[in-house]
């Protein structure tokens, strides 16, 4: 099914984040991050935030992190962000 979707996306040049329900990140330098299509927060500390996404997690590391706003779809994080990393389950999605 996913394979079919991927072909469909490639064929019609559609935004993958909507069809595949993938996270969309918008980062302002190192102090503000807008994240769409999140699946909730699994861990929150001022040094680390773990955000659940489809097929895994996004892990943010930084200093004085706080959640500016959290909604069903969008999440805004502010603070000093040092790194953004992904932790994906095996067989996770890949979009070329």
């Amino acid at each position, binding site marked *: 099914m996913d394979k079919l979707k991927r072909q469909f996306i490639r064929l019609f040049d559609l935004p993958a984040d909507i069809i595949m329900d993938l996270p969309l990140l918008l980062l302002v330098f190192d102090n503000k991050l807008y994240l769409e299509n999140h699946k*909730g*927060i*699994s861990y*929150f500390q001022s040094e680390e935030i*773990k955000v659940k996404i489809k097929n895994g997690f996004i892990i943010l590391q930084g200093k004085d*992190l*706080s*959640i500016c*706003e959290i909604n*069903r779809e969008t999440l805004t994080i502010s603070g000093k962000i040092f790194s953004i990393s992904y932790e994906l389950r095996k067989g996770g999605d890949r979009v070329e």
Partner: protein
Amino acid sequence: MNKKILHYWKGYLKIDIRGNALGRFISQISEEGILLWDIEYLSYDHYRAYLYKDDYNRLRPLLRRRKCQVRIIEKRGFPFLFLQIRRRVFLLLGILMILFIFKLGTSFLWSYEFKGLENIEEETILEVLEEAGIRKGILKKDLDLMEIENYLLQRIPAISWADLSWQGTRLTVDLVEKKLVKPVEKGALVASKDGIISKLIVLKGQALVKEGDTVTEGQVLVLPGSDGEARAIIKAEIWYEARAESPLKEQLIINTGKKRTKWGVKLADRLIRFSTTIPPYDQYRLKRSSKKIFAWRNISLPIELFKEEYQEIKILEMNNSAELALFKAKEKALAGILLHIEEGSLIESVYLEVVENEDNNNEKIKLRLMIKTEENIACLKEDFSGRN
């Protein structure tokens, strides 16, 4: 900013969240469609966040399922404003009091402003206004402006229009005065200048001269009729003559801009200079100014500080061209004549003549300018009774 206004309008709560696995709890809250903002991490089991006051009740089913505590720390926003105000009754009373005093203060007449007065004195208007019952310090609402306008028009006949209006606490009195027509004066018409009469139309009275006559200043032209009035249109040709000269060589004084200032002290009548007295330039202009050092009321010491400013000048010899000299001479002559010509006169012809130099030196240009005008020379001479 926009968002903050919305938050304020809806009313929001600052809450403390305590319990285990709070990250999950926040996810659950957001899944419910509840907006949380500014979530702060205080410790692993203690978060602080904001949410709308309407969403607070929707948290309750979630709380029951988990072992979490939510406590309200602060209530903010417009819906809670009334609560805050109740705590500050006296502040509110103060604001109301200020508004009341302001309203009270602006409901009186405090000053006047007059517009359009030319011949009538402000005092006369003020007196009439006082008769109508207007004083400084009376209540504005007691005055009927229309009535006062009518009263003003009745009392002062020299006013043709009056408009009263309020500008805050100031009463603006806008008036238009009547233009009074002067009664026709009696007397004979005499000539104001020498000339040859070119036009003579008698409206009232008896003419003593006819067109083409040469008249001299002060000569009686029209005698008054039986009612003592004399009116006529009398125009005469008048010749003006002026002579002027302009040098072909002129001296021009130019400031070079260089200057030097010297200081000194004046003791009684003696001058004491601080520096040499030799002027620093060959050609210069000297400006001297002095200042009393000590002056208090009528007491002053006879010591003065004086300043001498030497400004360097250069004198240039300029050779004017004949045309320029002629132009300058003409200007001079014309300026002399124009002083005598009355307004509204018609200049008929201008005659210019360069006068030959008798002594045959070519340093000056001389000219004679003659102007012929047509002017009204009728001039009323009052109390003319003699019928000679």
